[in-house]
């Protein structure tokens, strides 16, 4: 303390006349660029609002009804949850290609442990959650300790976990009626709350709460700040005293856990436990993250952006279907959005570097 105080005394007489002359003449574009840099979820939010307005104008109450709008939420529920996991990993400048496989394996564990081994569904669910977390731990350990590239690690784990899933389940589906009769807990996230025309499943509510919780934790805890710092520059983070390996492993474990929750939510959504479900979760989650403005280079973006990104995909999908357009139009437009989002990210990265 004494150090700082006496230095303060020494520096107290320093001249200050040149303060702040570089603030004034920023152009509007630069200000906008800076705003986007500070609030990365702004672009996806604008796109989301615009697309809702456009489809609302084109389709009227067919689209702009509580029922249709909450249907979108239900349709993006699973992807939204998985995309939260994907966001965490991508914030550390990684990528998780095994999210879909971990989700399916976890759901299969929940189903098989209940019906093959006769465990109480509560225990089976916990085992499924542990299974997902453990898969995430393996990813994290290989990335952090063995210094292997996340793309390769999770590409390998994708195959390994998916194969395990098929071998273990013997490709067998557990039927919806059986689950409903004997272990309704597994379908918990399919429960619905109706408010007028609006329908909210527990899965949707879980997704929204998860987004809020993660946004809060990333913003307001030291761990959250470290996630950003590690994604930004792992060497600088390490030199600053951040336990980089521990942060990485925790991120992949949390990602695995969230995927396991997604697996549970998926049982609620489709009713059955099917080892062939959720095959597109990888690509769809990465799409949501990218459209949501999280930088694939790590260290920048927000989980809210991902949520908006998932909703944008949902709005386009339902809107175009209600318009009677060929489903390929959806893919085409989503493809354009992905490229536009990355272009915007590159542009933001240029902010006075």
């Amino acid at each position, binding site marked *: 303390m004494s150090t700082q105080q006496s230095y303060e005394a020494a520096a107290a007489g320093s001249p200050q006349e040149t303060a*702040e002359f570089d603030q004034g003449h920023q152009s509007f574009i630069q200000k906008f660029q800076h705003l986007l840099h500070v609030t990365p979820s702004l672009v996806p939010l604008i796109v989301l609002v615009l697309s809702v307005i456009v489809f609302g104008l084109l389709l009227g109450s067919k689209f702009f009804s509580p029922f249709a709008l909450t249907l979108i939420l239900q349709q993006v529920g699973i992807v939204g949850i998985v995309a939260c996991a994907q966001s965490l990993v991508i914030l550390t400048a990684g990528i998780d290609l095994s999210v879909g496989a971990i989700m399916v394996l976890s759901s299969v564990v929940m189903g098989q442990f209940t019906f093959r081994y006769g465990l109480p569904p509560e225990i089976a669910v916990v085992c499924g959650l542990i299974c997902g977390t453990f898969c995430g731990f393996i990813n994290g350990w290989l990335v952090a300790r063995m210094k292997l590239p996340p793309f390769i690690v999770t590409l390998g784990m994708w195959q390994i976990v998916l194969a395990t899933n098929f071998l273990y389940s013997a490709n067998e589906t557990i039927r919806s009626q059986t689950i409903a009769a004997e272990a309704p807990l597994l379908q918990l996230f399919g429960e619905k709350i109706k408010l007028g025309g609006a329908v909210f499943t527990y899965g949707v509510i879980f997704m929204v709460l998860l987004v809020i919780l993660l946004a809060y934790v990333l913003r307001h805890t030291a761990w959250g*700040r470290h996630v950003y*710092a590690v994604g930004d520059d792992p060497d600088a983070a390490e030199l600053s005293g951040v336990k980089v390996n521990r942060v990485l492993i925790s991120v992949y474990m949390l990602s695995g856990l969230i995927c396991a929750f997604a697996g549970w939510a998926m049982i609620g959504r489709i009713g059955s436990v099917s080892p062939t479900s959720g095959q597109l979760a990888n690509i769809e989650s990465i799409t949501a993250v990218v459209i949501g403005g999280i930088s694939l280079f790590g260290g920048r973006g927000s989980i809210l952006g991902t949520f908006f990104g998932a909703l944008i995909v949902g709005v386009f999908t339902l809107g175009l279907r209600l318009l009677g357009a060929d489903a390929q139009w959806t893919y085409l437009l989503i493809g354009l959005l992905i490229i536009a989002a990355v272009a915007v990210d590159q542009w933001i990265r240029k902010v006075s570097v």
Partner: protein
Amino acid sequence: MSNAKELRASGATPLVEMKDISISFGGIKAVDHVSVDLYPGEVVGLLGHNGAGKSTLIKILSGAYQMDTGEIRVNGNKVEITNPRDARAHNIETIYQTLALADNLDAASNLFLGRELTTPFGLVDDSAMEAECRKIMHRLNPNFQKFSEPVSALSGGQRQSVAIARAVYFNAKILIMDEPTAALGPHETQMVAELIQQLKAQGIGIFLIDHDVNAVMELCDRASVMKNGQLVGTVDIDDVTDDDLLSMIILGKRPGVAAA
């Protein structure tokens, strides 16, 4: 000039001793059996060409690299420094040549990175961190205003002030400054020189890496010169001229006059 000199003469325990330190990268001996020491209230300059091994040597002390052989003592006790957190536990703070800032975080988040101030609920206390950051930055660089921007939006000199703030904020006993003024203007450089004098008067020991021989002559008590990973020699600044130092750097030999 100094108390440090008397301390050294009286046989007091050095603040830091790095003894016979070696490290290689692949085949390159970046640091080759180098010994340096530092007493309380002393500034020791580290000089040498680009690639001489200065940064590598001090990164061993700051925990960024693990030495292959050698020994580090702090206050006479042998210590193990295996990561930057260990170094900090011994009150060793470092301003890295690369600054080691997380570009997308703002100044306050960088200042407290890894040591965040938290509320009683364990949440980061942004307002407290920003207030502290404003205080220290005001001392180091009164013109600094960009508290809410990511540090990628700062100028080189502004970034350097943030890195300096981070090293001096946490009450270091041993301070490592790797070219702290490389990106600073003359006014800020002068501020850093004053800062070094202040810290020295507090009994803090400083390793200062600087290519400017005049600055070293002005600020340091002793200078250790390195070449090709090896120590050319350590001299008392009072015993040498700047030409002597230059010839040590360039020729890699101790000048005859500095036999003391």
